[in-house]
C-alpha cells in the first residue's frame, strides 16, 4: 500500500521520538522498527531519516553519540532528551485529537455504502 508522502512526513517525527523513548537506537534500527510497527506497510526513503534526526538533534530533542557497532563500524546512536519526551507528549496529544476526529468521520461514513477509497483510509486510521 502506498501512503501519501505528506502523511509519512508528518508522522515521522512522533514515530522517531516514540521509538527513541523506548531506548537509545541508531538509524538503521529505527527504520527497521518502523517497518515492523507498520507491518511493512510504511516505506520510508531511508536516507531522509538522517536529515530528520539531525534536525531533532539541533532542536535538542535527541542527543547523538558516536559509538562502534558489534562488527566495529562507526555508528551514531541517538537517545531522547527530556525536551524530546515533552515534545513527544505534545505530539501524542495532537495526534490523539486528529485520530479521534478521523474516527468519528469514518464511523459516520460506515453507515453510508463503503467505497474502496474510504476503506483504504480506514486501514490507515
Amino acid at each position, binding site marked *: 500500500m502506498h501512503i501519501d508522502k505528506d502523511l509519512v512526513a508528518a508522522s515521522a517525527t512522533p514515530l522517531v521520538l516514540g521509538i527513541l523513548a523506548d531506548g537509545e537506537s541508531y*538509524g*538503521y534500527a529505527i527504520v527497521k522498527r518502523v517497518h515492523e510497527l507498520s507491518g511493512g506497510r510504511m*516505506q520510508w*526513503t*531511508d*536516507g*531522509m531519516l538522517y*536529515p530528520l534526526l539531525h534536525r531533532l538533534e539541533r532542536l535538542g530533542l535527541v542527543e547523538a553519540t558516536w559509538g562502534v557497532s558489534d562488527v566495529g563500524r*562507526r555508528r*551514531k546512536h541517538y537517545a531522547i532528551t527530556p525536551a524530546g519526551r515533552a515534545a513527544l507528549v505534545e505530539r501524542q496529544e495532537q495526534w490523539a485529537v486528529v485520530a479521534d476526529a478521523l474516527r468519528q468521520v469514518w464511523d459516520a461514513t460506515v453507515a453510508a455504502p463503503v467505497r474502496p477509497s474510504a476503506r483504504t483510509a480506514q486501514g490507515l486510521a
Partner: protein
Amino acid sequence: MDAGLEAQIDQWRGYVRRHRAIAASDVDEMEDHLRGQVDDLRATGLDDDEAFLVAVRRMGALDAVSREFAREHSERLWKQLVLVPGADDAGDGPRWRELAVVLGFAVGAGVAVRLGLTLLPEDVLARFVTFLVLPFLGGYLGWKRRIGVRTVLAVVAPAVVLALVLALYPFAAGGSTEVIAALHAPVVLWGLLGVVYVGGRWRSHPGRMDFVRFTGELAVYVALLALGGGVLVGLTAATVSLAGGDLETVMGEWIMPFAVPGAVVVAAWLVEAKQAVVENIAPVLTRVFTPLTIVMLVGLAVVLLGAGDLADVERELLILLDAILVLVLCLLLYSISARDPLAPPGVSDRLQLVLVGVALVVDAVALTAMASRIAEFGASPNKVVALGLNLLLLVHLVRAGWLGLGFVRGRRPFDDASRWQTTYLPVYAVWAAGVVLVLPPVVGFV
C-alpha cells in the same frame, strides 16, 4: 564481505560524498545503514549485487536526500573550511603538519623580505622582491605536490638564470630597460610556479586550467586577507596614536615585510584547503563586471574616435590599452575556468563574446593610430614592449572570440575555447622571458 561488494560500497561512498550538503560523518552514518540493510537482505537469501541494489534503492534518490540535508544544514552550502582536525573528524596529523609547514614557509618569506630590506639597496630590492617571496610559495606547493628532483631542477635552473641576468646586466641607472625587466621577471616566475603547481605535468591542459583557477582564487584570498589585515592594522595604529605612539616605522619595517609575503603563502594554503571560492565568486564577479566592462569599452571607443590625434599620448595610451586587454582577458579566463564545460551556451557566453568584440574594436582603432605614429617617429623600448604585448593579447582575443562564436552558434564544443586559453598562456611566459633576456642587450641597456 567480498571484494566486489566492498568496491561497490566504496563507489557509492564516493558518489554520496560529491553532494556538498552531506558531510563525511553523514556518509559514515549512511554507510552503516547501508551495510546493515545489505547484511539483512543477504540473510534472506539475496546475493551481494541484489542486496546492494535494493539497499541503495531504499536509501532513496541521493539528490533528494541531499536537498533534505541542505535544508537542515544550510551552513554547509556556505562551504565549510576544515583546516585543522575537529572533533567530528577522524583524520589528524597531516593537517597539523601542513599547518606547521605553511607557517614555516610564510615566516621564511617574511624573513627573506626583511633581510632584503636590510641588505639590498632600494632599486635592487624592487627588482628582486618576487624572487624573495615566490620561492617560498613554490616551496610549499612543491612540498604539497611532492615534486621530483627533475621538476625542481627544471624550475630552479631558469629562475637562477633569470636572477643572474637581472643582477649582472649593466642596466643604466633609472633606465627603462631596468623597469621593463623588473616588471617582466615576475611573469616568468609565475609561469615556473605553474610548473610546480601541476607537479611537473606542464603539458597537461586540465593542469594548466587548474593553475588558472588557483591564480584567480589566490587573488581573491589575498584581497580578502589584505582587507581584513588593513582593518586590523588601521585600528591598531589609531589606538596607538591615541596613546601617543607612532606605528609608522614598525609598520614599514616589520609588519608589512612579514604580513604581505606571509599572506600570499597563507592564501595559497587556503586555496588548497578550500578550492571552491572561485566556483562561488567567479560567476558573480564575471556577471557583474562583464556588462560593466562592455559599457566602459564602448565609452572608450567613442572617446578614442572623437579624440583625433593620439600621437601626444602614444606611450601611455599603449600601456593603458594593454591594461584594458589584460582586464578583458582575466574576465574571460576567470569565467571560462569556472564554467561547467558541458552546459549549453547561455546569455553570459554571448555577453562575453560582445565583450571580446568591443575590446577588439577599441584595440584596433588605437593600435592603427599607434603603429603609424611609431613608424613615423621611431621606437623606444617601452613602445616596443607595449606594442608587442598588445599584439600577443590581440591574437589571444581574436582566436578566443572566434572559438567563442563557434560555441555560441553551436558549431564547436566549449572545450575548444577552453583549450585555446590553456594552449596560449605559456606564450606570455616565453614573451616575458624574451623581454628580460634579449631586449636589454639589443637596445644597449638604456
